């Protein structure tokens, strides 16, 4: 009787329609899920930014800025930022910092003279437990107004197989769509390359919001401004530089003593482009030295420390919040995939030289 009841039900058309209806409801939910997961639809997701990572990419390294060195240091607040933000780091005497200097090449074995981009990443942990993670570059601004522009820039500047240089037509098309990138191209062509991590200024590029004790908001960008003077190198010096010149220089300098950077906050005024990292704010904006970062020593990233830290700039402490800068929001997901991918490789024992194991030994084991 039980089985028959189902059969008789199914024979009736109305029931069939109901069953189809239920199937449609389920299918809609599954499709919505699959679309949200980026399984179809071809939309740009945060995973798209890592799709160019080759399958042969050495396990355990960061997918961008793979070559780096960990540092430890202390941030000493000046107290000058306290009126603008309730973040504990701005009031605390000594905030421990773990960070990383890196080269702006995806290749973890890149020679130090292969890119003009150098970075500082840092995580400040205040005594209230709040963490402030940041990732700063020596570039003064982002090339494009949004994250999709970065993908298009990469695509446009890819050397064509025929000529070995980027296709001028594609570059022109990119610059037409993202005219603000022209400014970056000019900066890239003319600005001097830094000859030392120590003398470089590192800029946050994205905008954030400070929140004071009354809940008042203040849009802000910041930079780590070096105490050491900026030094550059001539083209010939650069071409002759040793493979790890910048990292050796940093180690040598730290043997003599700590290096310092001022954390300089730049306060936006109404109308400043907060949501566009490709636009710099006017020169005369008010600046505050929120404190000084002392970098006391560096150590190899294979030893851990900064290696497994995701310097996701959207992880800000209470008292700082995110602006509507689209590149900032996009970095959260992209960093997360990069972090997750490499920590999986490390966690599951696939990483070799990234965690200080000899490469040969592992390949022999395979």
């Amino acid at each position: 009787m039980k089985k028959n009841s189902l059969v008789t039900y199914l024979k009736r058309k109305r029931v069939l329609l109901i069953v189809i209806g239920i199937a449609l409801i389920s299918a809609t939910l599954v499709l919505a899920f699959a679309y949200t997961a980026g399984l179809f639809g071809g939309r740009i997701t945060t995973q798209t930014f890592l799709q160019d990572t080759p399958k042969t990419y050495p396990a355990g390294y960061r997918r961008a800025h793979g070559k780096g060195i960990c540092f430890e240091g202390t941030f000493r607040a000046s107290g000058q930022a306290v009126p603008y933000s309730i973040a504990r780091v701005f009031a605390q005497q000594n905030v421990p910092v773990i960070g990383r200097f890196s080269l702006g090449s995806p290749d973890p074995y890149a020679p130090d003279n292969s890119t003009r981009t150098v970075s500082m990443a840092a995580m400040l942990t205040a005594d209230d437990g709040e963490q402030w993670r940041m990732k700063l570059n020596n570039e003064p601004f982002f090339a494009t107004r949004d994250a999709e522009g970065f993908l298009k820039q990469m695509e446009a500047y890819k050397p064509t197989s025929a000529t070995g240089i980027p296709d001028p037509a594609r570059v022109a098309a990119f610059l037409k769509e993202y005219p603000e990138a022209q400014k970056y191209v000019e900066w890239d062509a003319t600005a001097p390359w830094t000859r030392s991590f120590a003398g470089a200024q590192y800029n946050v590029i994205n905008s954030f919001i400070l929140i004071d004790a009354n809940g008042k908001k203040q849009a802000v960008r910041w930079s780590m401004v070096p105490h050491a003077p900026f030094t550059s190198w001539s083209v010939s010096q650069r071409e002759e530089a040793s493979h790890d010149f910048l990292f050796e220089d940093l180690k040598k300098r730290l043997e003599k003593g700590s290096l310092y950077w001022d954390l300089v906050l730049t306060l936006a005024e109404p109308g400043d482009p907060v949501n566009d990292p490709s636009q710099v704010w006017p020169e005369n904006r008010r600046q505050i030295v929120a404190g000084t970062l002392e970098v006391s020593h560096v150590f190899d990233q294979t030893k851990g420390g900064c290696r497994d830290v995701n310097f996701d700039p959207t992880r800000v402490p209470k008292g700082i919040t995110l602006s509507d800068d689209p590149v900032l929001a996009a970095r959260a997901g992209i960093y997360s995939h990069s972090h997750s991918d490499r920590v999986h490789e490390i966690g599951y024992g696939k990483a070799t030289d990234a965690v200080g194991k000899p490469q040969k030994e592992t390949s022999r084991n395979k």
Partner: protein
Amino acid sequence: MAKNKNIPSAPPTHFNVTARILHWLMASMILTMIFVGVGMMTSLTWRPWLLNLHIPLGTAILLLVIIRLINRLSFSVPKMPASVSGFQSKAAAGLHWLLYGMMVALPLTGWAQLSAGGFLIKIVPGVNLPPILPENPFLFALMHDAHKVMAWTFFLMIIGHLSAALLHAWVYRDGLFSSITWTRKTITRSENLLPGEQSNDKNNVGNERVM
């Protein structure tokens, strides 16, 4: 549970009010949660916002499922309708316990993953849950994988649960679906506790069919 009681009583036709409220509240929260979770793994724009929702919502689900399990184990629940076979009944019961298991395991693996990754487990700015695992790449990888695999499995289980429930609501109309709602539909029970109720049950089956 029923066996603890001295007097034999008929199982209820409905889940108790607490169970019904928790079921629908958590159903909406969990469905939201799954889409928030999947969305924050892909969205260029909304990840920080979605993550700020994901963690407090997950914490709320973990607290609610504890209340729900206590409630589930403390009170008797409706029997399956007579038309549901023994195998189906067992499979449904198994699925229901697996669903409860997912409701517990998903928040815990999410919490564990953030702990092992060295992240703060931010409920609201300035309020963080304590870590439940030490920072460790292997534990992070394991918890991250577990969280993802279970979330996708959970979603498929929910789709199965929903389809079966709607089939009972719209096709079988056997009172199974209404046992978790507020509509008054008599359930036809799989076993007869009191001999006098047997005829009533049969009548009910007939009545349902007319609809």
